[in-house]
């Protein structure tokens, strides 16, 4: 079906802004995010904590606190999601789109049996009887690779390990065959040994069921090989977005480059020093009118401090918000002039050996 009509995206987000009024001032958590997600595809949203990726996900699922101020358009299959949420339309969230949370230790209700928690969705949305729903819960647990599913349904979350709990959460999310699954750091809180299993499981389920997925992570390595498209977020904006191949091998934004450099690689020599990104993410209250990454960027020039760079190009193409993109002549020129000066326009010291294209 997707082959016949690939034209309209399943989920389309345009110019999404989210603000939280606080006592210290308004936090600009998301500042104009736009992306498209097509049926059966995976979009990875990558960024540090505080980049606005989780807030974006929560906005899509209508999970923000009431105080949040949201503007922009979120369209799912031609329908305005925020209007659906406001009208309290039944059987949309949980059936069409659903979400898997970061921490399986806290995202299951501690006082309910896991079987009940899975069955509950089936009973409410699909009108299954208690016994039918429990049978389906066993099948779902089997699908997500839970050992002894028939016994597990009558166990409580505290009787399961983190990895098994996350399988329960995934089974719960899959119960009503959603078309879109938002996975918010689905493996961050589980043991490293289990992470790959869970990610592969999610990927396999997505392919088998023709689901679309938004995979939110701080780890570009997680996105690699699993995402069709990647959007890199920084300070509430998408700073670079492209298909995965382009983004990993021909990135333009210095932040994407810096993120990739900060990941340890298996083929690095032993005791190889990672390149951490200097400095910290900016405050989201009253951000200065400049490229948010400029203070940490080794390419920064004076024009970077003169305003927030626009995301270039059309939605769906390789887009980046940088005046001196890495891998281009402008970027090379910026880098060499900063090296010559020993510091960037924002005052970050640059040594001859430190990073860059060299």
């Amino acid at each position: 079906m997707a082959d016949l009509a690939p034209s309209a995206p399943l989920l389309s987000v345009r110019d999404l802004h989210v603000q939280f009024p606080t006592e210290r001032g308004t936090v600009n958590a998301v500042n104009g995010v736009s992306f498209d997600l097509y049926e059966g595809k995976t979009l990875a949203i990558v960024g540090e904590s505080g980049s606005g990726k989780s807030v974006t996900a929560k906005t899509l699922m209508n999970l923000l606190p009431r105080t949040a101020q949201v503007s922009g358009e979120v369209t799912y299959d031609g329908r305005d999601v925020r209007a659906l949420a406001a009208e309290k339309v039944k059987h949309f969230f949980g059936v069409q789109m659903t979400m898997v949370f970061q921490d399986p230790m806290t995202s299951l209700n501690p006082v309910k049996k896991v079987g009940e928690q899975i069955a509950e969705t089936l009973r409410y949305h699909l009108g299954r009887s208690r016994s039918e729903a429990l049978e389906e819960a066993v099948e779902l647990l089997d699908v997500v690779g839970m050992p002894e599913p028939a016994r597990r349904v009558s166990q409580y979350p505290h009787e399961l390990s983190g990895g098994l709990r996350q399988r329960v959460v995934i089974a719960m999310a899959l119960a009503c065959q959603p078309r879109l699954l938002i996975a918010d750091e689905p493996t961050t809180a589980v043991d490293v040994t289990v992470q790959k299993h869970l990610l592969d499981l999610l990927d396999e389920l997505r392919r088998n069921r023709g689901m679309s997925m938004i995979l939110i992570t701080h780890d570009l390595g997680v996105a690699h090989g699993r995402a069709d498209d990647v959007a890199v977020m920084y300070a509430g904006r998408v700073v670079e977005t492209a298909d995965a191949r382009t983004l990993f091998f021909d990135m333009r934004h210095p932040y994407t480059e810096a993120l990739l450099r900060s990941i340890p690689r298996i083929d690095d020599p032993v005791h190889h020093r990672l390149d951490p990104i200097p400095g910290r993410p900016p405050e989201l209250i009253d951000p200065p009118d400049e490229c948010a990454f400029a203070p940490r960027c080794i390419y920064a020039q004076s024009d970077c401090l003169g305003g927030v760079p626009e995301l270039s190009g059309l939605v769906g193409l390789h887009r980046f918000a940088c005046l001196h993109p890495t891998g281009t002549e402008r970027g090379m020129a910026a880098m060499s002039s900063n090296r010559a000066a020993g510091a960037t326009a924002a005052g970050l010291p640059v040594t001859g050996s430190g990073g860059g294209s060299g």
Partner: protein
Amino acid sequence: MARFVVRRVVLLVAVLFAVTFLGFSAMNLLGDPLVNVVGVLAELDCEGIEAGLVEDTTVDAASRDCDTVAAAKAQYHLDQPVPVRYVLWVGDLATGDFGTSFQNDQPVSQVIREKLPETLILLVMAQIVSLGVAIPWGVIAAYRANRAFDRGSTVASFGLLSVPNFALGVVLLYLLALRWQVFPSAYEGDNLGGLVFSMVLPAVTLGLPLAASYQRLLRTDLITTLQEDFVHMARAKGLPPLRIMFRHALRPSMFSVITVFGVSTGALIGGSLVVEQIFGIPGIGREIVTAVVRDDFPVVLAIVMLVACTFVVLNFVVDLLYSWLDPRVRAR
């Protein structure tokens, strides 16, 4: 589980010993029980009379005053020191003999059998009223936290908490029994229906202030629970808000309420003294007031013991409720 129960029973026995010993000593040391049995005769110096040092003032030659005193002393073991009397009392208790009321020579066990059911019904109804009011009230307040309803109920609950129960009782009695005549103004204990019906106002009087404190606790705990990831998860599953409140958030938020439920029984029994007076309910509360005023210490002791028992048993029930509420408690 078996160990748990055994520990509780041991605790119950220990508490009963402590409470009755304190009560027994207090009643005996603060007043002379002999006075309550024989009246002014207790003042007689019988030893002096026997020795011929004091003149015997007996009017009726058939029964000498000092014989009466001696008989009373023997009957109530008043010639023994207090610790011995306590042991004797406990021994009687073990055989189901609560002693005899000084007041009217009725066995105390009979007094309790007559008065206890009324008070128990009152207490149970008061708790039903308070939980029945507090749970929906707390849920709605937490669901719309810091909105108009929540702010209004904060004021209302502090209002209810600061109104003394005799005032609330009188107001309810005036409005609902006298003015609008919804409920009977006099106690009707002939049949169960009439009894329950005439207990409604007293139960509301006792239960409403308690509902206010339950509501405060439940609201706060619910607001905390609503921040939990599993509530977000339930929302992501597309469940409707009220279902999330009652099926997911309520149970893990009941701990404070359940704890106070156990402790509040003492306050309720205290309150029932007043409320039983206002509404003319012939219950334990009225009985203990009379008994204390008249130093009728077998009755007082029996009631004190009963209250202590209720306390320990109720807190045992509360512990069972904890483990029913949260499976993680069961595992320990």
